[in-house]
């Protein structure tokens, strides 16, 4: 597993992909938080990082599938999947190695945003007048969310030899899971009859809950289930090509 992890991390940072992803993520968030007047925290009545945590999922929705789309599709296209699967490593290790490498990239992208937190912390009046607990919760929520997107991305990448297929399928699945269930719950059929349950199926619901700074086991279990479900699905897809 470690060998795969190292190779993939090296593939990110040995080429432009890693820097590009992190750069795009940080520039977009920086613009939204400090430059665009409609959302700039500088013009906002109180110190908050809400803009970051509202918009980061949207950016992840495109960036994470872009990172994961090549993971298995490229291996299948080039035939290297046969090379990998005939080495004494288990399929689980291959999947986990690639998963953790993608997550490492997400963490690398998120770490610099601590600087944004520090900035807003200093700008608060008095200094430090920001809900640190909620920010911490939101970071944890965002990591879980990215974890779900990454698992979905790997699953989509294992579906076909074509990277574009992987990207489009992953974006669609992420969107469906993140916003889709919320919008579905607005259907008249569900009104007053279990619309909350439909919402609970979506990532959004649990992300919001954790963002308040309360880490509820139910939310954590939800995120871990989604991640587990899609990673297991990835394994099934890869076993099928054997």
């Amino acid at each position, binding site marked *: 597993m470690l*060998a795969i992890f*190292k*190779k993939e991390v090296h593939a990110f940072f*040995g080429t432009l992909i890693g820097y590009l992803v992190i750069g795009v993520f940080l520039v977009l968030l920086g613009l939204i938080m400090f430059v665009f007047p409609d959302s700039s925290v500088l013009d906002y009545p109180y110190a908050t990082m809400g803009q970051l945590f509202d918009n980061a999922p949207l950016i992840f929705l495109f960036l994470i599938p872009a990172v994961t789309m090549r993971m298995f599709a490229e291996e299948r296209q080039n035939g290297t999947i046969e*090379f990998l699967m*005939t*080495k*004494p490593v288990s399929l689980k290790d291959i999947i986990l190695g690639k998963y953790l490498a993608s997550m490492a990239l997400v963490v690398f992208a998120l770490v610099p945003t601590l600087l944004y937190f520090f900035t807003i912390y200093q700008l608060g009046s008095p200094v430090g007048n920001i809900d640190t607990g909620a920010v911490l919760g939101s970071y944890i929520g965002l990591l879980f969310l990215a974890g779900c997107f990454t698992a979905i991305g790997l699953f989509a990448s294992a579906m076909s030899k074509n990277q574009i297929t992987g990207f489009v399928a992953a974006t669609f699945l992420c969107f469906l899971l993140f916003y889709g269930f919320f919008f579905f719950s607005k259907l008249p059929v569900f009104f007053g009859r279990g619309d909350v349950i439909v919402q609970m199926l979506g990532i959004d619901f649990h992300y919001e809950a954790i963002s308040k700074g309360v880490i509820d086991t139910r939310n954590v279990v939800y995120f871990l289930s989604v991640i587990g479900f899609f990673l297991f699905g990835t394994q099934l897809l890869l076993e099928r090509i*054997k």
Partner: protein
Amino acid sequence: MSVTVEHLTKRYGNQLALDDVSFSASRGEILGFLGPNGAGKTTTMKILTGFVSATAGQASVNGFDVRTESKAVRQSVGYLPEHNPLYLDMYVQEYLRFVAGLNGMKKPQKQVDSLIERTGLGREQHKQIGALSKGYRQRVGLAQAMLHDPEVLILDEPTSGLDPNQLVDIRKLIKDLGAEKTVIFSTHIMQEVQALCDRVLIIDQGNLVANDTMSELQSRLAGEKRVTIGLIGAEKPEFLMRLDGVKRLQATNTNQWQVYTDHKVDLRADIFRACVENNRVLIELHQESVSVEDIFQKLTGSSDSSSKGDRQ
């Protein structure tokens, strides 16, 4: 026996890729796998390396069953897949260290260096794999397969697309490997089988049609010698049929014939005398044994299905 295959059958949908194939190979043996495209060579190799599972039958490598002890099998097999898939954006050294990691080797550098030396990659070791020529890529593929010092090497068309010099190098490498390990390799090139193999397996449409040593194969399946003669005059030399050991007479040209004889006898002198007696002028005479190409065509040719039936 380091490789044993028993009654192996593989079905892809309706298509039978392998039909009840059995063979075995022991340590220090080089086994050549010969057959037309789509005969089932690659499928057999994929089953032996655990990449594909068999529909029926057993296969074991180094005493481990490929189905139930897949990891142990993969540990003791070095595999060069067909078309030699490589990560083109990795560097040679980096790639080999990655392979060492996959094999769970702790301190691989010494092994990596020694393999780079053995496969003659020294000058290219700091290049990106994508920048290497086909011959060098093939060496990287071989180095990758040999890195963890496996007992059994399975090489799927290791010499395809190489130039004649590279061919010689790679063949020598395979020959060296065969001294201490079990090597199974597939090829289209008959001379390669003749030059390298202790034993040859010929497979056609999923059936094993031959499993013999080279000399056995030549004597048992060929069984004939071919004498080509040229005579002045277009009349068929029927008198030759009266000679002992002549089996068939075939015209190849207006004044050229091929005389098929028993492989144990040499009839050239008799043919000459017979021609003189019958007042024919002999202008050409040479003899050859039936080559591996002929055997191969005889065994796998679609027109000659009878011989296939005999061998089952």
